[in-house]
């Protein structure tokens, strides 16, 4: 079958320096030509996507993620490389790009729909669906400048998701919506995929990538450093970030806080272990048995009241449990450079049979950045005697009582 997207060795180069020269500098550069400096925003990216594929692109700021989307959506032209997109595409690089502040929600639906390539008749046919999805019913005839940012985002996604594209490109856009809306968006993306839409999803949010995508592409400083399954890509990215942080031993550029997955490496996770009641390291545990997840960390700088967190997930990325010392109301002391510590999370393993993975991280007291973060730090097995299926053993007790027959 013909792939919907074929990208072969795509590269994009930008000139460094002034964005747009003034006439004066253009004229003066005739006299003394200066060598141009270039920066490769994207270098040598190749992939193919078929109907129903969803590829997550992850990487830190400036890794070239959005540039790839802009190339795919024909907004910018690649410097080198070949790109083929077969079929109608819809790109969502920013929610509500093209909305006019003074126009009402209704007017903007038609305007934005037209910008995204829908005919007026198509928009009319889907109008109710869009309004329903966005949940803005009573504000339909209010100018969008009076909308909350959440409503604005919902309307933006609703329009783009109803273009019924064969290829849907989604940039980091779901961060704004509330939880319920995000779930709705994921469901819509799943639905589109099931119908044969190929999806490209750019996100800083590992959870979202694992939830939405089956494939992953890790970008780092413009270059693709890993391609594979979504869960593998998340691990590869996390490893790359750790290595780079270790090498530089300094902060990566931090912009948007925690969601950027930036690590300062002021603290380092040295070891994560699963222990049984006797304190022995184990890799498999009986369902219902007591266990301790022990994290050993050292500090490279003075760190004030760090927050330790623990995630447990299934191998396909579903979150089972997520907690932090903060949420558990456990105060953490200040640490000085070269100190070490161990944090124990004691649990009664309530999980059912299966394989699970543990992610741990250390974040600063204000949750503004990570000191260190380890994806898939440890994998373990749970063995149970119960024949119940699912994730959690709820210890159901079944009883049966005879009832009098109905209607005498």
């Amino acid at each position, binding site marked *: 079958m013909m792939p919907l997207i074929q990208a072969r060795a795509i590269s994009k180069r930008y000139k460094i320096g002034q964005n747009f020269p003034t006439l004066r500098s253009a004229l003066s550069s005739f006299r003394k030509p200066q060598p141009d400096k270039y920066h490769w925003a994207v270098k040598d990216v190749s992939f193919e996507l078929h109907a129903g594929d969803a590829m997550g692109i992850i990487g830190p700021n400036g890794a070239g993620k959005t540039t790839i989307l802009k190339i795919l959506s*024909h*907004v910018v032209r690649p410097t080198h490389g070949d790109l083929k997109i077969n079929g109608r595409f819809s790109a969502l690089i920013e929610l509500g790009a093209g909305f*006019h502040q*003074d126009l009402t929600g209704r007017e903007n639906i038609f305007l934005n729909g*037209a910008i995204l390539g829908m005919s*007026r008749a198509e928009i009319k046919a889907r109008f109710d669906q869009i309004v329903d999805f966005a949940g803005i019913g009573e504000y339909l005839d209010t100018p969008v400048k009076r909308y909350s940012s959440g409503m604005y985002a919902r309307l933006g996604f609703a329009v783009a998701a109803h273009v019924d594209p064969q290829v849907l490109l989604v940039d980091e856009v779901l961060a704004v919506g509330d939880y319920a809306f995000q779930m709705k968006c994921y469901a819509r993306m799943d639905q589109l995929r099931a119908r044969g839409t190929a999806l490209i999803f750019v996100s800083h949010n590992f959870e979202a990538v694992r939830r939405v995508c089956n494939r992953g592409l890790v970008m780092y400083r413009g270059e693709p450093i890993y391609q594979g399954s979504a869960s593998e890509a998340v691990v590869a990215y996390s490893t790359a970030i750790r290595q780079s942080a270790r090498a530089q031993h300094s902060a990566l550029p931090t912009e948007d806080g925690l969601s950027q997955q930036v690590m300062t490496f002021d603290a380092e996770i040295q070891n994560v272990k699963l222990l049984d009641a006797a304190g022995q390291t184990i890799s498999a545990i009986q369902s219902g048995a007591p266990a301790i997840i022990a994290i050993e960390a050292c500090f490279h700088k003075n760190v004030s009241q760090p927050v330790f967190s623990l995630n447990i997930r299934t191998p396909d990325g579903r979150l089972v449990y997520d907690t932090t010392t903060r949420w558990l109301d456990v105060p953490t002391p200040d640490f000085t450079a070269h100190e070490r510590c161990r944090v124990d999370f004691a649990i009664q393993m309530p999980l059912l049979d299966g394989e699970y993975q543990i992610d741990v991280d250390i974040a600063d007291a204000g949750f503004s950045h990570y000191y260190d973060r380890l994806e898939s730090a440890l994998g373990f097995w749970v063995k149970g005697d119960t024949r119940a299926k699912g994730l959690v053993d709820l210890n159901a007790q079944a009883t049966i009582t005879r009832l009098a027959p109905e209607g005498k």
Partner: protein
Amino acid sequence: MQGRMNLQRGIYFELLQAWTRRIIQARYQQSLLGGLWAIIQPGAQALMFSIVFTQAIRVDTGNIPYLLFSYVAMVPWSFFAGSLTDMVGSQVDNLNLVTKIYFPREILPMAGLLARLLDFAIAMGLFVLLALFFHLPLFSLAWIYLPVILTIQVMLALGIGLIGAALNVFYRDIKHLLALGLQLWLYASPVIYPVSVVPERLRAFYFLNPMAGIIESYRAVLLNGNAPEPYLILAGLIALGTLLVGYWFFKRVEFQFADVI
């Protein structure tokens, strides 16, 4: 493939409509007078020049009242100047769109022009009222030339607008240059004075300005009920050439817009 191309073209035509509607809706949103501004702007200018050129310095406009004489020229001039200003800013003003979504970029200047066309139509409506008030014979057969003159003006404006819009992406000076140029151009065109004040020996040269031919043609048709003079053909050729060059230039550099804007 051909079918898909046609489909695409149809959708882009709808986008042009939608974008034009948006400009018009947005322009008159939260404004008290709304569409009346289309009349007030050229009307006030014509009125001001009327006072100057009938009370202070006398200009001979034959048996046509000066107010009507200048209004009939000021309306197409306002359309020309206004549409050029909107077109030249069209890419930069919509930076948010240009850097995020692909569509043929010429839709933005074209929509700017079309939106100004509405103002032009409204202002022309007032001309009819003025002509009735001044007992001017209306609706002569010569009006069949109006679409021709309008088409020539639109071609000229679109050609310059496309070049200006593209250049303005690279050099923001263009916007200022245009404002200055339009001021000078107004005086180089027979908007507030009759062509009769231009010395005979300079006339041929004078009509190399296509706006001179266009404005004079509006006057000939609307005020005197005459067919336009042959200089409209010259204006038409220049306008066509400008449009072709403008479109070619615009499409040639369009792909760089999102990179440099």
